[in-house]
């Protein structure tokens, strides 16, 4: 009951929240819970309210209330001049968004999924990421490209790719990927305020998940720093890095590993570019073992970069080879059993952690 009350309250302006929150808190000892969806929605709402230059653009963001309801209520609140429904023409509307950013506006361009961003990738890379450099600082591009990234459920090969490593390899871009509601609010607000182009990789399956958030997180000034990872769970035996949905899997794996006496330190990257190399390396220097977890294709992936960074900076501290857990090296299949094999599972993370700790379990036992 408290949960639905909070969801209804969130639909209104945040200025009305404070008394309600204190009422709620006096009745419950648990922190407030909001879904990732509501976290993103509130972040967009607050940033649009604070800065008239911020506007939204994308397919179905307005009248449809958002393909995944992330932009719900914003058209009614800010009007059609600031919440723009576009035709299904990514190259065109992304270019228009980047041009508006050249002029000094702050567009938030939604891709219905990042698979469709490939149609506009020239504008993201060549028109947005590189402009500040090529113009020696004359043309900065304060734009945010956001949308769901990676696998959903049963959507097949063309709708399931993770673009984290593609975008994160490009200098001039910042690439963020939230896990929970706090991440969603803090990172999206930071992205909108940032003067550089930011690729904001959400996850469709996380939209409906609720996470506890403190009052500080709910405040309209709340912002997370870009380029800083978060240690979600402290440990001493093995470091597990992850981002987005995989953070949840890593945390569950850590709980199970603890029963076997392995204490895993789970790092939520939050920022793929800039990558928080110092937090990762500091952790590895403490635990001496590393598992990188990601949903995307393994070759040239985020884990490959993290592994290289650790080998370069902390080689002497490694007691075992770095392990990579990633999506299977195949296009995403449709059949449920094959899909399950194509995406990392909690067992995969556990197995890799045990390998790194020289406590492997024979394959037959994990089947």
């Amino acid at each position, binding site marked *: 009951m408290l949960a639905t009350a909070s969801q209804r309250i969130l639909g209104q302006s945040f200025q009305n929240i404070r008394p309600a929150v204190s009422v709620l808190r006096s009745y419950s000892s648990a922190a407030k819970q909001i879904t990732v969806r509501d976290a993103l929605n509130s972040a967009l709402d607050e940033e649009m309210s604070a800065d008239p230059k911020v*506007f939204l653009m994308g397919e179905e963001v307005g009248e449809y209330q958002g393909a995944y309801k992330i932009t719900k209520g914003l058209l009614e609140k800010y009007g059609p*001049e600031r919440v*723009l429904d*576009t*035709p299904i*023409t990514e*190259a*065109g*509307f*992304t*270019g*228009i*968004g*980047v*041009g*508006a*950013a*050249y*002029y*000094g*506006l702050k567009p938030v361009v939604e891709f219905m999924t990042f698979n469709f961003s490939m149609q506009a990738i*020239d*504008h993201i890379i*060549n*028109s947005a990421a590189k*402009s*500040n*450099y*090529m*113009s*020696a*600082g*004359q*043309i*900065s591009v*304060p734009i945010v490209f956001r949308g769901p990234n990676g696998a959903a459920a049963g959507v097949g090969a063309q709708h399931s790719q993770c673009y984290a490593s593609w975008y994160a390899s490009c*200098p*001039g871009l*910042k690439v963020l990927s939230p896990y929970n509601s706090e991440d969603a609010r803090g990172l999206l607000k930071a992205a909108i305020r*940032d*003067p*550089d182009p930011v690729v904001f990789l959400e996850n469709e399956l996380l939209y409906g998940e609720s996470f506890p958030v403190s009052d500080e997180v709910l405040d309209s000034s709340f912002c997370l*720093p*870009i*380029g800083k990872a978060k240690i979600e769970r402290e440990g001493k035996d093995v470091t597990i890095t992850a981002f987005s949905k995989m953070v949840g899997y890593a945390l569950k794996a850590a709980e199970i590993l603890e029963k076997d006496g392995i204490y895993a330190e789970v790092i939520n990257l939050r920022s793929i570019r*800039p990558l928080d*190399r110092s937090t990762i390396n500091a952790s590895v220097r403490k635990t001496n073992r590393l598992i990188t977890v990601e949903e995307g294709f393994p070759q040239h992936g985020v884990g490959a970069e993290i592994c290289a960074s650790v080998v*370069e900076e902390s080689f002497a501290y490694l007691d075992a080879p770095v392990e990579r857990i990633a999506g299977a090296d195949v296009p995403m299949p449709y059949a449920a059993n094959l899909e399950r094999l194509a995406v990392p599972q909690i067992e995969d993370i556990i197995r890799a952690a045990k390998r790194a700790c020289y406590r492997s379990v024979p394959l037959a036992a994990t089947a």
Partner: protein
Amino acid sequence: MPTLLSAWFNSHQPNLHPPSFYSLSLFRSSHPPPSPNPTLAMALSRFASSSRSGSLLKPLSSAISLRRPISTDTTPITLETSVPFTAHQCEAPSRTVQTSANELLTFFRDMALMRRMEIAADSLYKAKLIRGFCHLYDGQEAVAVGMEAALTKKDCIITAYRDHCTFMARGGTLLEVFAELMGRQAGCSRGKGGSMHFYKKDSNFYGGHGIVGAQVPLGCGLAFAQKYSKDEAVTFALYGDGAANQGQLFEALNISALWDLPAILVCENNHYGMGTAEWRAAKSPAYYKRGDYAPGLKVDGMDVLAVKQACTFAKEHALKNGPIILEMDTYRYHGHSMSDPGSTYRTRDEITGVRQERDPIERIRKLILSHDLATEKELKDIEKEVRKEVDDAIAQAKENPVPESSELFTNVYAKGLGVESFGADRKEVRATLP
């Protein structure tokens, strides 16, 4: 007055026009109207590479040796464009245009400067002082100059990689051009951009883009921002006949028409997309009609007055009714770029034919002479001065240093957040991005 004349005579060749003629033009120009004339100021400012004064009379000797009296006569002259405009989905503007001696002489000087600049760039490229890509605009000067005359600096211009002259028209300097082409610090992009990446944000010139067609949606985005900010200004997005077939152009045009954006799409049709003639690339080479629901105008792009008229018309139209397409029928004398001789896909006869029949500078020269606005010698003197300006700028650019090595790591981000970046050997070269 007599002192002025004798000083002038002493510093020039003896075979001049008779003194009586000359004193007449000096008289006219030494009594200029006190109100500032922006085009005259622009023209005058280009005479002297060093500091300039408001009056033609001081400092006396340097003023006379460096500057030529140019007609400040702004009495309207009525002319007709070479050909009438052809319209699609709109009513064509009149082919009768108003100009003045002052404006025509300014056009002549500006185009002559651009022509000289591009030819000098050709030599620099062959001398290997310019590297990579170099796309020259000679032949197309009337489009840049005529467009600028119809706009204010509040209006935005965005183009592709054939951008040197558009940059100049927006107020760039020769030194910024040559230094950038040669990769030096004084370049408009501090040497980090190169030929295809000239920008001048304070004049609302947004580049300078290497990806064919990308600049059109970007330009529509600029127009969107102008409308959003209620600036009452427009954006001119230039593209070539090669880019005219790009899908993103039609995507951007569709959105611009739906949202009534003040966007003018200008197709600089020089009839060749790199080495491919328009009839081999476009099923319909009537580019001004390709907007379908969007109105269009076909313009003689070699006639600077027609370009100015069309752009004035388009600006008014776009502010009220949304996007419009202008097709400028123009021609480039050089190949697509310096690595293209430009003669394998077209005949030398064609090139010389255009030079003889349609050259934009020659056209203005004929107009000026036939209307007795200046003498042939005066025009030749302008060309000589312009040549000297270009040579001086090149000499200055050659002396200019290359960027510091630390510049490798600047401007990657507007806000670098103190993150680390790496050189080729990351154990050797690292930098913190400010």
